[in-house]
């Protein structure tokens, strides 16, 4: 009945949605932010630990959300670890393009591997009401790195 939705709900998304990676508190986080989608009740709390040379040493999250927002947050934590904040911000901008249009024509070749890992989420661009589910974690990461503490995907 729902076979044509396997593009949106690829196995990797369902897997990360059910068993999110880095789903925990970081007691020694140096940056935190909360992301809220008041319309649907999705909520995430993001923890970032910046270490030597301001690199992202560790990143984790907690919260509740749909399969897409949980999988997106989980995949995000895996792709931004070890990055400089500027690199993570560049990745965030490219991911937003991917989520909204399904492609990223101006993507930086240096981030090609990371974008490949995030590509299972590109299917959301066909579901305008679900794009915000995929981008909530990235808005929250931006808030954490910019020190604004709160993000909303509205």
């Amino acid at each position, binding site marked *: 009945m*729902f076979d044509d*939705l396997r593009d949106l709900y690829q196995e990797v998304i369902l897997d990360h*949605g059910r068993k999110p990676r880095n789903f925990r508190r970081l007691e020694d986080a140096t940056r935190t932010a909360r992301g809220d989608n008041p319309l649907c*009740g999705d909520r995430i709390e993001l923890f970032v630990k910046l270490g030597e040379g301001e690199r992202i040493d560790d990143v984790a999250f907690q919260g509740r959300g749909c*399969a897409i927002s949980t999988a997106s947050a989980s995949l995000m934590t895996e792709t931004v670890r070890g990055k400089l904040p500027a690199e993570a911000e560049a990745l965030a901008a490219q991911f937003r393009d991917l989520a909204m249009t399904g492609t990223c024509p101006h993507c930086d070749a240096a981030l090609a591997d990371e974008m490949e890992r995030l590509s299972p989420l590109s299917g959301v661009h066909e579901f305008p009401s679900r794009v915000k589910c995929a981008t909530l974690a990235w808005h929250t990461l931006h808030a954490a790195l910019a020190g604004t503490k709160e993000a909303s995907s509205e």
Partner: protein
Amino acid sequence: MDGMNPRYDVTRIREDFPILGQVVRGKKLVFLDSGASAQKPRQVIATMTRCMEEAYANVHRGAYRLSETATEAHEAARAAVARFINAADAREIVFTRNSTEAINLVALSHGRGVLKAGDAVLISEMEHHANIVPWQMLRDAHGVELRILCVTDAGEIDLEDYATKLRDGRVKLVAVTHMSNVLGTVTPAAQITRMAHEAGALVLFDGSQAAVHRAVDVQAIDADFYVFTGHKLYGPTGIGVLWARLPLLEAMPPVYGGGDMIASVTLERSTWAEVPAKHEAGTPAIIEAVGLHAAIDYVNAIGMPALEAHERALTEHAMARLSTIEGLTILGRAQDRGGVFAFALDNAHAHDLSTLLDRVGIAVRAGRHCAEPLHTRFGVEAGTCRASFGLYTTLEEIDFLADALVEARKFFTPKEAARVR
């Protein structure tokens, strides 16, 4: 079609609703979100168009024929609303934008003008935000106490708790739903008013859902205030109703000032018009009032008893089908309930589920349906999906929903687990 009234010709009724013929992503539309807003029959659409093409001018102003015609149509709508809920007098009908504005009007006017600091307002745990937030605002601005009436695990008003909360006599207004927009619970209106009146409190009913699904008689239930909205009753958006007993409306100070609500104006001071005009400042929603009148005529032509019987059949069928689905939780098990079902699957978030259902043409609402505290009360903070029925809903549509839910659960079941089973 077991359980269905053979004289209720739902196929013919559906032909009145142009939108129901629509195809969504290649699939026939199965519209199960009437509780949020209902679809409109041709009769309403045509009446509003005719009003604009043939009989439109501002009301209560012009001494020319067209304005008189428009005024008559507007006031005929008021009379139709009065008959629809068996109000004693058409002057007891105040037109608002929607139920939300009607409740806010009571909170701002009766709340600030009649209630005193130290009085208490009692609302229930199963209210729509529209019947929570205005009272919180009144509490913060005016110093009344806001009390919360508990709901049982079945999703009914806890009458013991109700008696307890009324006991000290400080509650001066009870504001509760007549039918929950999440649980479908129809509340025991007459009992609620009797207990409130004995304790010296007035009662406001949020009838946004009830007025669509049940015959409402404000005198029989001895209500003091009753609000509902046009767009859920197959009428247009932008028109709602506040009914209140005449002496209450007369005692209430106006909230909005402007044209139409005055008796006389000088640059120093003004005096107010009689009710209901006193509470209807500015040009009203004329076309929408005419549309609401057409919607009421439409519902009356089918007949409220027939409509209720149809809905009971749908509700029983839905309860029978949905309660057998493995992993599906239905919120609330009230004895007296209408065609609103909020449910959650054990392995799918409400938004993922609604995306799946949308794929096969089924429109349900996902989230917390403007009733966040109620979702917290039932431990489903993440939200639910809600299917709500209208007079055009069919048993086949409910079967299709049930089949889709079974498939959706399979879709979200991990492959390995599915194999083991």
